[in-house]
């Protein structure tokens, strides 16, 4: 018999999770051996993966601070995972006290962890929802109670869209979320790509295969394909670039070569 719609999938911590692998790459211990095993296998082919994650976090930090500087006080972080430090609400509040943040993840463990971390925080919440079902996100009580969609929101899609296959139409999902945002909102986005990887393509492909093996397909998209997510947005300078080149605060030449793979960008709705 088919699982009824309202009954969630059971939680099987014997299969790797993107959130926990990400945490491992960032030096955290919010992970299990299956996650670490998967991460280590991926690193066999592209040892600099942690640097890519770190670059993502650093970009997000700069982008959030920039958005706060632009007067944005509401943040919607979809695919938030289990970050140990440097979370959006910390960065945002450092720049703009009282900023409100809603985290969204479809991993129930990540959501549960996030709820524990944010317990008692009245200006931040966590939603268990899937990027591919924007109405679940927009209709959630957290979004409705914490965010005023009539005012600009920073929508963060950092290191998430490359886990959404074309079959699930990530473009439509992004468009639907965009549709709900007030003018002046911004989209903060990073995406994995074969472009900029400092190792031979075969090695990256082998890494992608590891993700495929653990049934967490990693979709590498070209620059043009990534740019399409910004349909309806005006790109903020310097446009869609490798992460270290987006409004760097230190000399990008000091960055690890792995940090330059993939693309980052911020767009603003008219």
């Amino acid at each position: 018999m088919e699982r009824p719609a309202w009954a969630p999938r059971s939680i099987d911590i014997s299969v790797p999770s993107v959130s926990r692998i990400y945490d491992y790459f960032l030096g955290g211990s919010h992970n299990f051996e299956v996650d670490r095993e998967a991460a280590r296998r991926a690193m066999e082919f592209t040892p600099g993966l942690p640097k890519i994650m770190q670059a993502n976090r650093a970009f997000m930090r700069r982008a959030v601070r920039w958005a706060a500087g632009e007067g944005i006080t509401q943040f919607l972080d979809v695919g938030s995972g289990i970050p140990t430090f440097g979370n959006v609400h910390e960065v945002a509040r450092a720049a703009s006290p009282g900023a409100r943040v809603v985290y969204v993840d479809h991993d129930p463990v990540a959501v549960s962890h996030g709820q524990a971390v944010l317990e008692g925080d009245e200006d931040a919440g966590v939603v268990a929802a899937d990027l591919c079902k924007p109405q679940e996100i927009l209709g959630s009580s957290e979004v409705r109670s914490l965010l005023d969609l009539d005012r600009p929101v920073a929508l963060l899609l950092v290191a998430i869209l490359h886990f959404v296959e074309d079959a699930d139409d990530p473009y439509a999902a992004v468009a639907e979320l965009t549709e709900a945002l007030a003018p002046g909102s911004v989209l903060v986005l990073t995406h994995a790509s074969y472009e900029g990887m400092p190792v031979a393509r075969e090695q990256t492909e082998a890494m992608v295969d590891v993700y495929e093996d653990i049934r967490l397909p990693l979709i590498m998209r070209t620059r043009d394909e990534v740019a399409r997510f910004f349909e309806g947005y005006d790109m903020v300078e310097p446009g869609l670039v490798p992460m270290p080149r987006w409004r760097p605060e230190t000399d990008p030449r000091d960055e690890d070569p792995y940090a330059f793979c993939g693309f980052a960008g911020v767009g603003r709705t008219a």
Partner: protein
Amino acid sequence: MAAPDGPEDRLRRFATIWSRAVFPVTSTSLTRPEFEEQLLPSARRLREALLARAFDADTGRAVGAALVEAHCTDPEALSRALDCVDAYLVLYCGEDGPQEELRTRASRLQHAMAAGYAQALRERTLAEQEAIAQAALRAQGVVAQALHASEARFRTVFEGAAIGIGMADLDGNVLQVNGALLRMFGISEQTMHGRNVREWTHPEDAPQTWKLYDELVRGEREHYHLEKAFYRPDGTVLWTNLTVSLLRDADGEPQYQLALMEDTTERRLLNLRLRYEATHDALTGLPNRTLFFERLEKVLGAGEKQGFGLCYLDLDGFKTINDSLGHAAGDQLLVEVADRLQSCATAPGEMVARLGGDEFVALTTGTETRDEVDELATRIQNALVAPVRIDGRELTVRGSIGIVEGRAGEHNAAEVLRSADITMYRAKSAGGNRFELADPEADARAITRHGLTTALPAALERGEFFIEYQPLVHLGDGSVRGAEALVRWLHPQHGVLGPDRFIPLAEHTGLIVPLGRWVLEQSVRQARAWRERGGDTDPVRINVNLSPCQLTHPGLVQDTVDILERAGVEPQALCLEVTESALIGADDDLLKPLRRLAEMGIDIALDDFGTGYSNLANLRRLPVSVLKLDRSFTQGMQQFPADPVDLKIVEGIVSLAHSLDLAVTVEGVETGAQAEQLRILGCDTAQGWYYARPGPPERLHELALADATG
């Protein structure tokens, strides 16, 4: 800004070197300068610990812990930090102290840092492991709760459903049933427990019921749906609309059977009741025509060994009772009769029904129905012997019974019933209070007679009659002199019927008057048409038959005159044929209209002459101008040589007729020899197949033309 190369500036330089060494192996999202700022307090504490009088291991441990705090969780970060302290702490922060002591102090600080780092990392790791494990547990709890809620919902649906739901394993052992099902069966859950589906057989199970069940539990069928009866413990029957589905596990292996059942007992009872009402007579409670026909058809559709006997009863004089005593009394009588009849047919295979009015049927079936039906009819007659007491009156009930007996497969129900009906009428015609046995030949006659009689009026309205014309040919020159109009009936079922089939019936019912008038109208109109087309050839005359009934009809003369006038046809064009028998013993009253017609110039022919023992002497008294010799006289002339007696008779009649100034027409001329003979004998005109069979008016026109040109 610190003084260049002052202690503060040197401390910063140390921090810069330290941050540069460690930053690449951290996973912080801070920039390197920010990271340096984060390290600065630790650097300061190291300097203080280096220069303090007494060694303080806690400071070293705190600096190690601060590294973990700054997310330098990669042990390589510690290694690089210690390298840095080892190489640069004394250099940048040692000031002018004794180098050896400072170096010793620095290395002790490193030990403390390592210990502090290890402990902090251990605690952080454990805390994070604990946190993620808790998160996983909580998430599982949420899932379990959701599942529990979902199961609770299912249970609510299961328990609250109005339809009965039950699950059993594939061996038929009942595993779980809901309240609705228990209520339907009227048993407790304990009683239900341990029951097996296969126990629930019922005599009314459809033949395929258990075949479907077996297919399902063998996994050959996903579900089936049927109506099924179950016994309740109290002996009553539960009727259900049952759907059974096969439940498979995730691998597709059959696991359970799921039954959904709807209690249809009430609905079924209602249906039965409606069916009863639709198949029973409200007054007497007897089966009605519908049910009787169903039963009869079933019997007739059975194998050939199946016999049936049917008594069709119609009460004699019931109408009189109804008219004189009222319908209420009539109804009481019918109820009493129904009761008595029912007591006559109590054996299995017997039934009594009321077809309507005072018509009842009793049916017996079996193999020996020939004797049984006689006995049944006798029983019925005996049952009616005792008078019926109604409103203080003793009414004698009599009935006419038609009996049909036969085997299945010979006739359909409608035919059997019609035969019984006809036979009953025979019994009634024979005086009533008796029974008659159906006789196929008598039936066949009666069926048509009966049927045609009732169909006649409508047939005239619907224009089912038409007229054919048979030419009358002059024997002297072979020219067409006229034609006899012969009415036909195009019957929807029986096809074309000749006048012999229906004229007597029309006579009987009086319909002959309008029918005869119609024939006369048509024929006269046709005569005019011929005349108009005939040009200068001799005008063709039309012969039309008059029945005895028409003869006595007061409007005969006026109708005839009107018809002729309306058509604009002179009376000389018409010849009315009257049978000899119709005029036997005719008095002047009867002859008066004929005389009037004859006086107008209409020819009167004496039809079928020679069959009615007519008083030849009477002939001169009749207003007749033509004798039509019956075909029996001419039959003897078909052979060669002709019968000499016939010849003599015909010769005599012709001679007699001519002496009375009557023309002679012969009928039934079928051969050339006959025609020649009759010509020699002096007959004037002839008709018969030798010339033409009766046909449509156009044919006669063609014959006349051929005659004219030939």
